[in-house]
């Protein structure tokens, strides 16, 4: 009904809800919120048809600040709610907001299954490598040796790699960005363009409990040497084109090569193909330090979406059948007792 009146071009202001934002001053979440609002404007999305679903944690307060529909659910379960929402109304544009604790610890199981099923939605995992809302305990992505109230002399459990987890779970779209990056809206737009589950790891600075943990690659100064922004069909170059990523054929892995005079082909630098799953696996596993941080759209190779497949099958199953409740209730072998009769009259 509403498509009778075209939606006027919205502004960022139109995507801001009337709720007071309650993150700590300086939190990376503010920048992500702005980037998402910018993305909505750029996409020309309809707030009435846009849904933000979250679990529990600092990041999960996100839906309250968007002037769309929003559901702040329970810890770790946002993917399950999103599945019900999308199956019930496939026309809704569903965005999930989760964190490293919410999405990979208590809700790891649901993250795995929503990716495996390939529900059409965007999953933004805000990774700050710490539990913020509960005051700073180490999380499943905290680096070895993280000091926290529950690991006073350093954490001993090995961290999970969110993008590697997503690929392992069967994700068909995996991307990375970080809170203050101006590229973030572009990454989100690519995720939105992907039909199916799109997984975006967003490095987010927790100013109180894990301050500047991503500074080594996110800091503006020297970023070009530490960030590898991937672009479909373009060579994997960084450091102003003086270095690139090549295939180490001998070890079946990736390596950093120097590029002289811009001749990346001579240096063996590979061209980014977002549909190459093997290379995607290698990119998400690249250890930061010897390698730059791989950012942008790492993998994008769509497959039929879950809700689409369900709808298709439902149509097939309904084909030729009439929803006759009276007939359904009287299914199988029946018999009739006539009035004033003490037994059956006939079998039907």
């Amino acid at each position, binding site marked *: 009904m509403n498509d009778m009146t075209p939606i006027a071009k919205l502004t960022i202001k139109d995507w801001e809800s009337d709720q007071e934002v309650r993150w700590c001053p300086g939190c990376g979440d503010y920048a992500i919120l702005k980037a998402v609002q910018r993305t909505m404007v750029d996409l020309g999305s309809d707030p009435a048809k846009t849904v933000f679903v979250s679990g529990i944690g600092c990041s999960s307060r996100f839906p309250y600040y968007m002037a769309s529909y929003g559901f702040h659910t329970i810890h770790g379960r946002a993917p399950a709610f999103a599945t*019900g*929402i999308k199956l019930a*109304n496939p026309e809704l544009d569903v965005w999930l907001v989760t964190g490293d604790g919410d999405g990979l610890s208590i809700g790891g199981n649901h993250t795995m299954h929503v990716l495996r099923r390939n529900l059409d939605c965007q999953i933004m995992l805000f990774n700050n490598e710490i539990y913020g809302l509960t005051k700073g305990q180490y999380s499943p992505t905290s680096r070895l040796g993280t000091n926290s109230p529950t690991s006073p002399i350093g954490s001993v459990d090995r961290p999970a790699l969110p993008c590697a987890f997503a690929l392992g779970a069967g994700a068909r779209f995996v991307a990375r960005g970080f809170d203050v990056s101006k590229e973030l809206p572009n990454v989100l737009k690519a995720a939105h363009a992907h039909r199916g589950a799109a997984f975006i790891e967003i490095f987010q600075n927790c100013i109180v409990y894990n301050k500047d943990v991503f500074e080594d690659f996110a800091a503006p100064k020297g970023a070009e040497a530490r960030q590898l922004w991937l672009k479909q069909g373009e060579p994997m170059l960084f450091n102003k084109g003086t270095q690139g990523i090549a295939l180490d054929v001998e070890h079946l892995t990736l390596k950093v090569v120097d590029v002289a005079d811009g001749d990346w082909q001579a240096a063996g630098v590979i061209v980014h193909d977002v549909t190459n799953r093997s290379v995607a696996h290698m990119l998400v596993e690249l250890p930061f330090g010897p390698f730059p941080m791989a950012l942008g759209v790492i993998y994008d190779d769509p497959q039929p979406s879950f809700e689409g497949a369900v709808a298709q099958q439902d149509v097939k199953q309904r084909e030729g059948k009439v*929803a006759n409740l*009276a007939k359904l209730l009287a299914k199988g072998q029946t018999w009739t007792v006539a009035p004033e009769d003490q037994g059956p009259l006939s079998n039907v």
Partner: protein
Amino acid sequence: MTTILAPKNSESQPQTGVVPEAAPEAVVVRFAGDSGDGMQLTGGQFTLSTALAGNDLATFPDFPAEIRAPQGTLFGVSAFQINFGSTEITTAGDAPDVLVAMNPAALKTNVTALKPGGLIIADAGEFSKRNLEKAKYEVNPLEDGSLAKWQLLAFDISALTLESVKPFGLGNKEALRCKNMWTLGLALWMFDRDRAPLIEWLKDKFKKNPVLADANIAALNAGHAYGETAEIGGHVLEKVQVAAAPSPAGLYRTVNGAEAISYGLVAGAQLAGLKIFFGGYPITPASAILHNLVKMKEFGVTTFQAEDEIAAICSAIGASWAGQLGVTSSSGPGIALKGEAMGLAVITELPLVIVNSQRGGPSTGLPTKTEQSDLYQAVYGRNGDAPVPVVAARSPADAFECAVEACRIAVQYMTPVILLTDGYIANAAEPWLVPDPATFTPFPVTFLEELNGEAPNGQKTVLPYKRDERGVRPWIKPGTPGLMHRIGGIEKAPETGDLDYSPDTHQKQTIARLEKVNGIAGSIPAQEVSLGETSGKLAVIGWGSTFGPIHQAVRRARARGLAVSHIHVRHIWPMPANLGELLKSFDHVLVPEMNTGQFKTVLRDQYLVDAKPLNKVSGQPFTIAEIETAIGTFFDNISGNEGGELPADTTQLPSIEAVNP
């Protein structure tokens, strides 16, 4: 081939067995065999034939937790009991009159249940040395006289079956699979049942393999012919005529609880004008509902097999928010996992139906046995003050109405509703007067589509938590233009739903949610007495699947002149408004339950009545006799002997030896 073992001392046969002088009012037959013998199928088909013959009936299927327990073992025994008769039947019967034992283990685990003088039909062909050992028999019981207090009819059913299907060229294993049909044929002869519907059914079942259909039909006919022609000790095997039960006019079929709930949910959604979303995760005995609904897509049903119990309920809540009727189902352990999400549905005030097919607990407990021990979990089992209406089904047929009622409450009051059923109701079958959907009162849902409030600045605004006169908030689907808002599990301000932790808000909203649920009592019928007067010496009050034995026990006690009434409660929470007063008009209150006294506690708490518990937690339903005895304690002038705990009953299904050899 045929081994006929006539009773050792046929002269001293008791006269009270299966061969009565006049036609009996009711007969109880138990089929018992190896879990691979097809006993549940045999029982199911015998049930159908019995229903078609116009008898009222009740069944009790009992099967092991193991899918394919080792053959011939005591714990691999699967049994199916049916009670049918010419009067109203509400229980699967106390002690069987006839036991069909397909092997030594089946005999051992079930024979003690048989009435003295009852008839044993045993497949002598299975009483090999090896099978006797597996059943822990040192001597063949068919030969040592240990079964003298019953009538014994033992012959080589296996060999007779092989003989009857010989023309079809089946392999030995396949041929022996027809054994259950042979046995069924004999049973149909005994009770004078029509074979035609069964033959039709076999033809349909094996329509892709007509040879198997023909073989099974041949076995069925051979078993029937055996009854007709064989002279077995002359007087042992005789036809038993059970007259048809008088029943209201109309169209009938048999239905089990899982089917009835599935139909009820679909009907409920139709009456509400909604599509239905069912999120489930496999668990015994609740899975059958998902199995049924997946085949009803044309009714606007979407089913989702989730990754776990939590995802199952969360997806259903998501679907409810999006405007469908969300439903999830499970058994105790799964319901425990869903607790947190139920709380979210309570605070966000979204409709949801949660079906709990109760089984023995705690933890994994008794996965295939029945219990009523999740009542506390249903009424109280969530964090915070989280009132949830609870409806309990008493029988397979009643489960249909209860499912419709659960849907009605959920959508009319924007609340999760728990529907309690149990393993017994889910699996048992009974005749069902097929309801006419045209006679149901619809309860169509209206979604809010326009701004419903005014902001302080005078602008029109959306108030997602603005309550109507019953305290119910509007249902707003995402996708509705102009009504964008956010909901969640954090305490919210009245009307706007904005986050608000303030003391006054939490106080107000907690009470508002409580009063909304309490108010449901105004929409349910007043409590009636199922049997007897509205006052007197004793009220026996029950809920759920204990209806049958309580009803019959009260009927018998009243026939003896005792001032006792039966009250059956469908709405466990909130309870009917007049229930407290009704209970107070009796001198005593007895609460038989398959738990340690949970409903008793709720009644004491709500009404300050001295309700006495009668508890049974052996995974077996009450027998009529047990409740009748307990009723007697209120009339024997001995004080202090009322109620209590009943021990496990070795004669009842599931037999103790079968599950714990």
